[in-house]
């Protein structure tokens, strides 16, 4: 396994591609919104948007689809960022969708509201009339994402049509849509996890503390470390252990696993990822592993 550190200009090429995409979003759409989770990828999006539209402040409001199962550190980070740059923040809660629509709140050991997020998202898109949702999805994350266009058209039901995607040639991103449709735009499609970290190192981008090693009470579930919280249901067989961990991805507390780690700095995180034998989502998400097509299915229902 090669240990890849940032050298040369490949990060400039990736940055340039993303800036180009942000300027296309700004040039083409009337009501774009940036989907923000408090994770490293959506934080990178904000940084790139700021660079793309300098000297103006990024004009994109941030949309947080709040499952209610957040890490406190991610919420604190979100609020600080919003305050620092004066962004408009829109929060819509999955819990409200559940009440309004009389849906069943998932139960069980890890009651994930991940799938319900899509309903709240689609409702919010309709409420505000958003024509473009900017997301931090990367093609190297997952095999269904690997197939998605940078400007990904969603039909009137919010569904991705993987078998009828628009041709997308050169840098001619076609964001034209009819009423009721929307576009999901992925400016960092071509970045790998390692690229993101090398860029964060180079540009000194601040991240939530979750990404660095800290002590946390966890249970071991099928080899995955899940943080003890009010959102998961412990049973007799669970043993609570205090571990030194960090998060490689930040999702809901109900479906995101921590990894044992000593990495306290960006450099140490990069070394750790380089020597890891596991993929990013494979190591940290328990929601992708339900079936071979879990992500594809969620995208068909309007997921990011």
């Amino acid at each position, binding site marked *: 396994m090669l240990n890849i550190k940032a050298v040369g200009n490949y990060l400039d090429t*990736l940055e340039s591609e993303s800036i180009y995409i942000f300027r296309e979003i*700004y*040039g083409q759409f009337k009501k774009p919104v940036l989907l923000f989770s408090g994770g490293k990828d959506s934080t990178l999006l904000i940084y790139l948007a700021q660079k793309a539209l*300098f000297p103006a402040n990024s004009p994109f409001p941030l949309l947080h689809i709040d499952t209610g199962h957040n890490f406190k550190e991610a919420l604190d980070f979100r609020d600080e960022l919003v305050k620092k740059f004066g962004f408009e923040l829109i929060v819509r809660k999955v819990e409200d969708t559940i009440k309004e629509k009389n849906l069943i709140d998932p139960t069980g050991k890890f009651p994930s509201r991940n799938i319900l997020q899509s309903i709240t998202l689609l409702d919010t898109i309709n409420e505000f009339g958003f024509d473009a949702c900017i997301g931090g999805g990367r093609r190297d994350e997952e095999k269904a994402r*690997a197939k998605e266009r940078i400007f990904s058209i969603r039909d009137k039901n919010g569904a991705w049509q993987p*078998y009828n995607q628009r041709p997308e040639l050169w840098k001619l991103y076609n964001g034209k849509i009819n009423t009721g449709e929307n576009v999901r735009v992925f400016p960092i499609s071509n970045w790998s996890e390692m690229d993101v970290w090398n860029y964060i190192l180079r540009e000194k981008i601040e991240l939530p503390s979750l990404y660095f090693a800290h002590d946390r009470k966890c249970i071991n579930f099928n080899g995955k470390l899940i943080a003890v919280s009010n959102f998961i249901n412990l049973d007799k067989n669970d043993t609570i252990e205090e571990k030194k961990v960090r998060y490689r991805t930040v999702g809901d507390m109900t479906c995101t696993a921590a990894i044992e780690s000593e990495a306290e700095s960006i450099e140490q995180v990069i070394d750790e990822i380089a020597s890891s034998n596991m993929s990013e989502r494979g*190591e940290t998400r328990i929601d992708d592993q339900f079936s071979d097509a879990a992500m594809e299915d969620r995208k068909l229902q309007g997921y990011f």
Partner: protein
Amino acid sequence: MDILRFITAGNIDDGKSTLIGRLLYDIGQIKSDIIQSVSKSDKTLNSINLAHITDGLRSEREQGITIDIAYKYFTTQNRKYIITDAPGHFQYTKNLVTGASEVDAMIILIDANIGITEQTRRHSLVASFLNIPNVLVAINKMDNVAYNEEIFISIKNQFLVLAKKLKLQNISFFPISALLGDNVNLVSSRMTWYNGITLMQCLETINAKIPNSHITRFSVQCIIETKDSEKGFAGKLISGNLKIGDSIEINPERKSAIIKNIIIGNTYRNDAIAGDDICIYFENGVEAKRGDLIIKNEIPLFFSNKIEATLCWLNDEKQLQIGEEYLLRINSFEIKCRITSIRHKIDIQSFEKNTETNLSAINDFLGVIIETAEVIAFDSFSTLPETGCGIIIDLKTNYTSAAFIIEK
């Protein structure tokens, strides 16, 4: 470390996805959980299914074919690679064209048992249409033909004939077995008659595209305004260079202006070079708008409302309609247009221009006349590819229905 983008093209079952799986596997960049997942979803094989690494959709895995392009990434000490795995079926050629439009190299796979097929010819035509700078011909499944040198040479010679007609550039040939790894990443001990480099060595050494540095073109993407500053015009400096004080021309209006300020990223600069994402300000409050093409006059633009172009039709739900109104887009410039005549269709067997036909179908390559609602500014593709190509958008569905390159 730079970035090299390449695409794999070949007929169905020529082993494209297997080749990519092999490259990733040999470079050691498939994580263990991914290997486990591709072993799990194919219960009929004991070994891992390399193709499933890139076949990301359910139907693809079920049918064992690639329907749409998938992007994969790996890194060596030299380069970051962006791989596009393209479908082999004729009906999915539109996806191949999508995936091939920005690449530095195309790997064309040919099954050594079968030789050149109609799809090989079609993929080569795509490479020619898009002017892909490097073509790597991988003659695969050499293990099935007992590593026979004569078969390799015979296919190579046949390919060279068609490559000459299509004016393909920088062609190299590799006898490989993607399944077993021969000459992919490691030199094969089973083909001692082959003295060349491996496919991977070739990828490590070919040049990535670099922008033209002497013809200045800048396409305005958006206007950036703040409360305290005047309007800035943002976009990519496609080619050439700009500095403060330069006289430029804003097109198609043919307005003159002088550059007052240049911003790259979040820094004020004195000059910019090809590839920079810039925001520029003009003296005396001159304004531009999205779609404007800003140039220095090293080489003049064409101005016309009539374009001769080669077009590839990409919409399988609607045929090209002569005289119907479409939207034309070049960079960020958009205008209504009509395709007024089909001059010829390129024959897939001979690559000759067949003038007998007026019919067009999906994936056809056609010589056409496009008439725009007003006079527009453009380059020929041979002068500058970035300003000499575009797309045609259907006005009802907004579907990207064709790609074209401008002859003149």
